[in-house]
């Protein structure tokens, strides 16, 4: 276990590895990078030094073409190699776009392998835009269910939520770039959790106590602000970011980790105010951890990140009667979804439905009308200020 690099950042699939490649240069020394993909050309272009090419024989250097099955098969064929690469890191952060074949198929396999090796696994996953097609969205949802089960904590960035941020006239490429920016911010924040020279240091073991077992319900977000009251403003920005698209009604968490990064003028009062604001929205009644760090390079601004988690119930809660899901789950790897799978799938979808989280979906003309109208219709709201 090398204390120099407690975090292993793994980019999975085309989207994940190119993102990690772009960030590799700017990350602190506490982070080691790894790219995993089937597409040889994309791997080479990613620029990540440490790489694993999946499906050398089955896919012959090409991608999985959106087939999650091919992705998971390719990863399972390379189990030995992946185990070797994942060994030794106490924290593994997986980055993937779940709409892709490798991203959706291989990421859950990697998460399971890393968890088996004793690492705390945090997954940062993006869900495709609704306009990318129902099939892609459905396979990404299935992948999310599998990932949720295997990783200790899963943070989901719904591309749909970004529509609210980008100008109405923004081209699609701009929206994808926006996804990249948010995931980068998340990676930077997570890698900053354990950076050296912290006033209030956090150790990787803290993450273990926050996320004790795979399958936890987790929320992560980060925000940045400048000027007077920057710390509190950054905490609010974190609550309002698309990484955390759920209102406070989405449910409270038992565990909360808050990291405040500020200029030399950072006060305890600032930190406490930020923690209080986050606690009132997110919970953290059982464990609340605070980390603080001074960033002399950026004295005017403050950054606040949080990771909130509720451990998975020890005894899996009795799944709701497996009524035929109106969406029709297709392409699941297991023939019959286990209760746990349904359970976590339901949880993910429920967050979007806010107050009506746990009630049966309300279908009218095939649409779940409990999901806010403006989200379903892709109506852009005026900016908050």
């Amino acid at each position, binding site marked *: 276990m090398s204390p120099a690099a407690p975090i292993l950042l793994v980019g999975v699939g085309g989207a994940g590895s190119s993102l990690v490649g772009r960030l590799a240069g700017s990350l602190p020394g506490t982070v080691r990078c790894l790219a995993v993909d089937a597409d040889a050309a994309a791997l080479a272009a990613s620029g990540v030094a440490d790489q694993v090419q999946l499906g050398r024989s089955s896919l012959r250097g090409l991608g999985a073409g959106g087939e999650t099955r091919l992705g998971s098969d390719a990863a399972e064929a390379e189990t030995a190699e992946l185990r070797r690469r994942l060994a030794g890191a106490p924290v593994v952060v997986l980055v993937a776009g779940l709409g892709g074949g490798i991203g959706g198929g291989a990421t859950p396999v990697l998460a399971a392998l890393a968890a088996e090796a004793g690492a705390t696994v945090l997954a940062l996953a993006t869900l495709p835009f609704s306009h990318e097609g129902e099939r892609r969205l459905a396979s990404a949802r299935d992948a999310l269910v599998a990932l949720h089960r295997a990783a200790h904590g899963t943070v989901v960035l719904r591309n749909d939520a970004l529509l609210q941020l980008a100008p109405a006239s923004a081209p699609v490429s701009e929206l994808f770039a926006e996804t990249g920016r948010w995931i980068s911010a998340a990676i930077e924040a997570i890698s900053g959790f354990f950076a050296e020279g912290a006033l209030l240091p956090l150790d990787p073991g803290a993450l273990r106590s926050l996320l004790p077992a795979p399958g936890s319900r987790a929320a992560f977000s980060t925000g940045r602000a400048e000027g007077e009251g920057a710390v509190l403003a950054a905490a*609010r920005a974190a609550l309002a970011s698309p990484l955390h698209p759920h*209102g406070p009604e989405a449910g409270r968490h038992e565990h909360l980790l808050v990291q405040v990064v500020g200029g030399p003028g950072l006060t305890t009062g600032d930190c406490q105010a930020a923690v209080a604001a986050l606690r*009132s929205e997110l919970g953290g009644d059982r464990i609340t951890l605070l980390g603080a760090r001074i960033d002399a390079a950026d004295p005017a601004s403050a950054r606040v990140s949080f990771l909130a988690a509720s451990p998975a119930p020890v005894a899996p809660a009795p799944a709701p009667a497996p009524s035929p899901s109106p969406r029709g789950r297709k392409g699941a790897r297991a023939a019959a979804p286990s209760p746990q799978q349904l359970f976590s799938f339901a949880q993910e979808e429920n967050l979007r439905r806010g107050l*009506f989280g746990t*009630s049966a979906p309300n279908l*009218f*003309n095939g649409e779940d009308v409990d999901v806010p109208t403006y989200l379903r219709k892709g109506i852009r709201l005026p900016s908050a200020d």
Partner: protein
Amino acid sequence: MSKRRTVPLPPRIAAVDIGTAKTVVLVGQVVDRSVRLLGFGERRTEGVVKGVVEDLERLTECVHGAVADAEASAGFTLRNVYASVNGPQVDGERVKGILTVPGRDRRVTVADSLGAAASARRIEPPPGRMTLLYMAQPTLLDGRQVANPVGMTGERLETSFWRVTHEEGSLRQRIGMLNGMSLEINEFLLGSHASACAVAGEGDKRTGCLVLDLGAGTTSWILHYRGHILCAGCVPVGGEHVTNDLCSALRVRRDVAEDIKLKFASAVHHPDDANKTIVKEGLPGGELQFNRATINLVASVRVRELLEQVRQDVAGRLRQIFGRDVDLTPAFLPSGVILTGGASQLAELPVAAGEVFGLPARCAIPATEAAQLRRPEYACVLGLVAAALVNEAPPRRRPAGFWDILRNLFRS
């Protein structure tokens, strides 16, 4: 008859309305052509989501509390109640009984008239559903609408009803719950029918109107056409959905969103509100600022969608009944749309409804002597009392102008 005249006891009517947001129990008595409020109990409904019971134990507790409050304020124990039914478990359809008038002279007898009605009632409800009510629709004799066909001549006698059915399991659950409190259910009444009784005048019903009861979890509607109930329905969306959308868009807690909805939200989006901000104080993280345009946009797209869903639901029912598309025009429904229920208090709702339906639209508040009940959310429970009066057996000496009393009671 004895010399000492017995003073007729006006019926004491108890009504129970279990809504998604609150449960109301009202005890009323008709005295001097007006309802005297005898007892009242109100509790926040627990264990009901979007009109569907999710936690019977909690619901039972809150209904019991409301009944107990009503009994305490009335000073006597309730025995019989009228209860409303609402929500997605309630459905309805038109049932028709057709009879070829027998006999050489083709004169309709009382037996023929009853026979046509009986054949309509013989139509089985769909499996798993129970029939609750039949609401009479006009009788047609050879296609002509007649008030009473007996004695008239014709060949084809056609009687139809709007039949209200309820999902069997949840109805039994509801009956069991009320019976468990030693309450006998005189009758279940359709919630939207009760609301219409409270807010729509006889004139509105005669000419034709669409009454929308916008509740917290569901919106139910009933269409009165030429003096009878043509059809009714329900859309599983209500005021709580507006609150939820605001929670999601503004990232605030439910109570804050509810407060913002009541104070600032509107059913009509005004883009020029973009620069107006609303400052909300007293929140845990300090004060927060919201853009008024955001609030209105979120609320207006939801409400517009809700009204559009109702319009589609109405259009679908009308298509079933008439066998063709029927336009909702002022000629078809001269009295337009009447909006009531707790969620109808959203600002500028009639404007939005007018635009969606293409009909004149207005909000209505139930007329009653009790000032604290003159609020749209009490339309259903007040209407229950009004509608139930019709069912009550007339007192031993029927007072003159019984119908006048009714009319005066709930004239809006």
